[in-house]
């Protein structure tokens, strides 16, 4: 059974309502799906539609077979789906511990037990528990963001460019953590700019272009596909994709 099944999803913003024009995907428990595509393809918008930040115009979203299309962010958390957004994904003025507690906001009685479980998986967060999140390095912040999302013990975890702005070493470490999270049984959907590296740690990959599915398949095979390489991976050794070829500025 798939944990997350998305069928012909479309939607967008009040100002631009045709951004996502029919995206379908599925992620099984324990599986890591990476979603790649050029800037502005609608990757982040898909994630916002899935979490209830935006209301889908058409299509269907199911979690463990249950229809959850159009639920509020709160209901989506309760249904077991959590997003780590692309930017500003921690509360900078709150401590590490308070950030984790916010991840369990809807179920405060479980906070203690979950805090123990999450800090066991990410020991760094235990060491820094009293530190304000804004004092963490970029890589540490991404780990905190992921720890916060895991506090509610989601069955589906959505990550939006978790390695944006990280050093190659920090990106490697983070990919390893994402991989381990998937292997613990969570269905993980990861949007990434570091396409080549992302495909190397993922089970399957989906290429989105202009709000639609363009290519999909097992990640290693897709990474070798000459057309995909030419489209997205050519030129730059680091495998950053950028349709304009100007390179992407790192964030913060």
């Amino acid at each position, binding site marked *: 059974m798939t944990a997350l099944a998305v069928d012909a999803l479309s939607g967008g913003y009040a100002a631009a309502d045709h951004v996502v024009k029919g995206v379908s995907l599925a992620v099984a428990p324990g599986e890591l799906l990476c979603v790649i595509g050029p800037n502005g393809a609608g990757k982040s918008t898909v994630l916002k539609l899935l*979490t209830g*930040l935006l209301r889908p115009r058409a299509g269907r979203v199911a979690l463990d077979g249950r229809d959850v299309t159009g639920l509020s*962010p*709160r209901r989506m*958390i*309760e249904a077991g789906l*959590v*997003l780590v*957004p692309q930017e*500003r*994904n*921690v*509360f*900078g*003025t*709150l401590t590490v511990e*308070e950030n984790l*507690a*916010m*991840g369990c*906001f*809807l179920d*405060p009685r479980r906070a203690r037990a979950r805090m123990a479980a999450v800090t066991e998986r990410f020991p760094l967060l235990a060491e820094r528990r009293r530190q304000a999140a804004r004092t963490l390095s970029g890589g540490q912040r991404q780990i905190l963001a992921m720890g*916060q999302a895991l506090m509610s013990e989601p069955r589906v975890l959505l990550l939006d460019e978790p390695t944006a702005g990280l050093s190659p070493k920090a990106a490697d470490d983070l990919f390893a953590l994402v991989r381990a999270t998937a292997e613990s049984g969570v269905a993980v959907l990861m949007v990434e700019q570091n396409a080549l590296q992302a495909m190397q740690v993922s089970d399957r990959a989906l290429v989105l272009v202009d709000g639609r599915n363009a290519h999909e398949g097992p990640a290693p095979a897709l990474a070798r596909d000459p057309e995909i390489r030419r489209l997205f991976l050519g030129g730059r050794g680091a495998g950053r994709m950028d349709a304009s070829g100007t390179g992407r500025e790192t964030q913060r």
Partner: protein
Amino acid sequence: MAEALAQALINGVIAGTILAVPALGFTAIFAVLNYPNFAIGALATVGAYAGWVGNTAFGLPMAAALPVAFLAAALAGLAVQWMAVKPLEAAGALMMAIASLAAGLVLENMLRFGFGNELRGFDLPLLRDWRFGAFRVGPQQVENFVLALACMALLWAFLRFSRTGRAMRAVADNRDLALLRGVDPVRVAAVTVAVGAGLAGMGGMLVGLDTSVDPLVGTRLVLSIFAAAVLGGLGSIPGAVAGAIAIGVAEEVAVLAFNPAYRLVVGFVAILAVLTLRPSGLFGARAG
């Protein structure tokens, strides 16, 4: 002269600490709802009258009249928010600020209609000032100071340890992420308005205790409150406290150095200086 200056410093720190209470309310509302609530002065007046009624009509001691001031101002603050500000939310922060200013005028005149223009005094025992060498402090001044500190300690504990307080800080920090973690921003906004207005009410009562209560007791504070919050960085909790103490001291010193009319100038100069030199305030970005 040095002694007079030291006395002005003592008075300024006490006045500034009291000013910090409504300034915290103002800055908290700004941090979560992103608009300056200029009804804060009238809300302080509501609290001053509520505390005065509690004290003179029901014989409540000050520590028991303060929660009455909090409650009355909190309810008035929610009424202002729902009836005047919320309908203009879509029009932006400036319109919300103007709506709150107008609602404050209405509130002020309702109080004038109900209580008249007379100066009202709390039922206070007449006590002799305490003298320390050349310095004088009134026991009532000290009690007000301690009550103001207690209000701030309670606020700090609420923000630090309660689930709702943490949610307030989370929304102030990053509204979208708070939404993604299941926080209801509408509920948090309502709690913030109630707490912020309640703080203004307690501040108004403390000022009324120090002077007297009339329909303008809170309105006269608005400039100082705004200056304190701007000086500390709008939306910053520690900033509001530091800003209020700085404004309180500067006002006392201005009165000493020039004449009482110059008290008003301090707020204007502080706002002007911050806006031109360091728009984010002394404490930089907003902080929890």
